[in-house]
């Protein structure tokens, strides 16, 4: 089985589900985004800001810097994005 690489959360398309693998800024922990927790990407722009939903349903806004500092392991990517989205390119 192929090993899924960690990516920055703003590399994933909107609608993706991912597991948090590494936080490069501690502040995210205070917002409930912990290593190992599941998040859903509500909105994301390539290398830009993102809005993610935490496990307990809270939408967290991440600016470009914060989004680039949140590394995740993708678990599911919306079908329409699998072949043409930036992820994996």
């Amino acid at each position: 089985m192929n090993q899924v690489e960690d990516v920055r959360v703003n590399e994933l398309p909107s609608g993706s589900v991912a597991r948090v693998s590494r936080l490069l800024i501690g502040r995210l922990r205070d917002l409930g985004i912990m290593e190992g927790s599941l998040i859903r990407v509500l909105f994301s722009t390539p290398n830009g800001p993102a809005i993610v939903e935490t496990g307990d349903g809270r939408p967290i806004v991440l600016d470009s810097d914060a989004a680039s500092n949140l590394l995740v392991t993708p678990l599911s990517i919306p079908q329409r994005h699998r072949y043409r989205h930036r992820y994996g390119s």
Partner: protein
Amino acid sequence: MDDKYVRRIKIGVVGLPNSGKSTIVSSLSGLFIRTANYPGTTVSINVVNLTIKNLRIQLIDLPGIYSLSSEMPDEEVATKEILRGNYDGFIVVGSTLSLQQTIYLLVQLLELGKPVILVLNMMDLARKQGININVEAMRRRLGIPIIPSVAASGVGMGELRKLITEIAQSSIAVNTKVIDYGPLEKYIDAVSARLNAPRGLAIEVLKGNDLLKEERLKAGDIVSKAIEEIGQIDVFVARKRWDFVSSITKDVVARGVQVNLSKLDYILLNPKVGILASLALLFTLAEVIFLVLNPLVNYISELLSMIPIGELMVNVGNPLIRSFIMDAVWNSTSIVLSFIPYVFGVALIIAFIEDSGLIIRLTFPLEKWLRRIGLPSRGLIYLIAGVGCNVPATSSTVAIPSSTDRLITALMIPYIPCMARLLVISLIAAAILPSQLTGVVMILPFVTSLIGVMVMSRLLLPLLTHIRVKLTARVPYAYELPQLIIPINRFFVKKVWHYTYEFLVRAGILIVAFSALMWVLSISGPSGLIGPEALTNQTLIRSTWLSLIGDLISPIFKPLNIPWQLSASLMYGYVFKEVILSSMAVLYGTSEEGVINVLHSALQLPSALALITFITFYSPCIATLVTETRIVGVRLTVINTIAQLLLALALSYIVYAIALLVV
């Protein structure tokens, strides 16, 4: 009452950003709010004094935070106060719409061992969304008083006042051990004993809170052992706290809090259509300022012109006093008064965007692009509002949480052409160009302004980091998305009134005072007092200080073929941009209506375009300058003002050269 019976207590008002802290403080006091600038920061902390019976209470309204280990420079002000300040107790203001985040913060305050009252604000909005919180169960779990509240309409404030008095009587239970940290407990106790510090402070020391480096050194051996046994303590503590939050939320919330994004959210936050939707909304906003308020400005101007000031002044025998009242005081006062609708409009829109939660929606899709031109996304709204009037737009930048973003925004607002500048520019355009081309030329100030912002934001950011050590890095933003609400309540009205009043009082006084100074320069010269005749006599005016200053400036504008009368009248722009027109009229010995004809014969198209470019941002008015000083300090204001002048001059020369080639 005898003063010896009066007791004094100090209470910190702590809460998440946008949870309604200030609303609660205003609701409680109704007295006065004093804003204090704390050293090393521009973040204001509101200090409110109130008296309940024989108790004097000092309420300290602290900036919003998510935890005690804040990474944002501005949040540090609040956490420093909480950790180091000598407080008798805390009011934690929580939003029912962010219940988990509220409990996460509350736990940290409880652990500090001071009496805590939890105010659960926005209960009405929670009910509307079907979120039912069992407050009684929450009281039992946390062991502290909890007040369900709707601060905007005063619900719960009576109970809060009563509970504040109980802090003074030490009758509020203190519950420091809400969470059992298991293997970390023995280390918490050891640090606590070593430093003689409360449990919460010991936890922060073990977590490695940057504000407690000294304490961490003192407890170095205990911290090392704890790390050896537990690993990353900050991760461990955060996990324990979130587990607790999760367990309590399950117990007390009847319906789980769900992501509740509106249809508007899905449009505005969408990466593809959001940019267009945001720009459309922002453009509409600016249009509202331009179109809706313009007739009101004209109406007020007409009303003011109906006041027979000349006839009223007939009885004033001394011509100098008469001229002072009419030409200096009345003229400037009427300009300030006629501008109130613009200021009110800007204040209304800024307050609405800030309080409704729209600010994040509007700037989210634009953030990446704004970053590319060196602008903070949060500053966009204030820059757009600056088109109405720079003064309220600059003063309201205090709401921007990051100091770097706040400074850059406040420094960039003067580059945005305000209504007064646009009025002068439109007059020049109308004088030189056929009416069908006026609109095209009106794009020029906005293009110039964009270039100015792009150039200066890139130049000023390294300068900021150079002269203000604390701003060396831009801290990443991460925050819970606030719900969209319609913030029409008495506190919203108060906020709009506050912005408008600030312009009227502060800016108004300044404009009148500087008009008086310019009046003195216009009726006197190196030979002494010439008299008010100089204002209408073309020969006498050449002997005034103003004319001399105009002569000094004119060599700069001579290559652009701009006559000295125009360059001298630009001096008045430092008072208020609209005054440029009346001073042109004075210097050319014509009426304000006649200025168009004068400009038509005095300026060629390339010179007119260069003048328009220069007026766009060569200087803000004195009221904007003073407001800018309050936000960014004197040094940066001076640097920025000089930079504006030089850049405006350089761009006007470039425009002139291009126009000569093209025309």
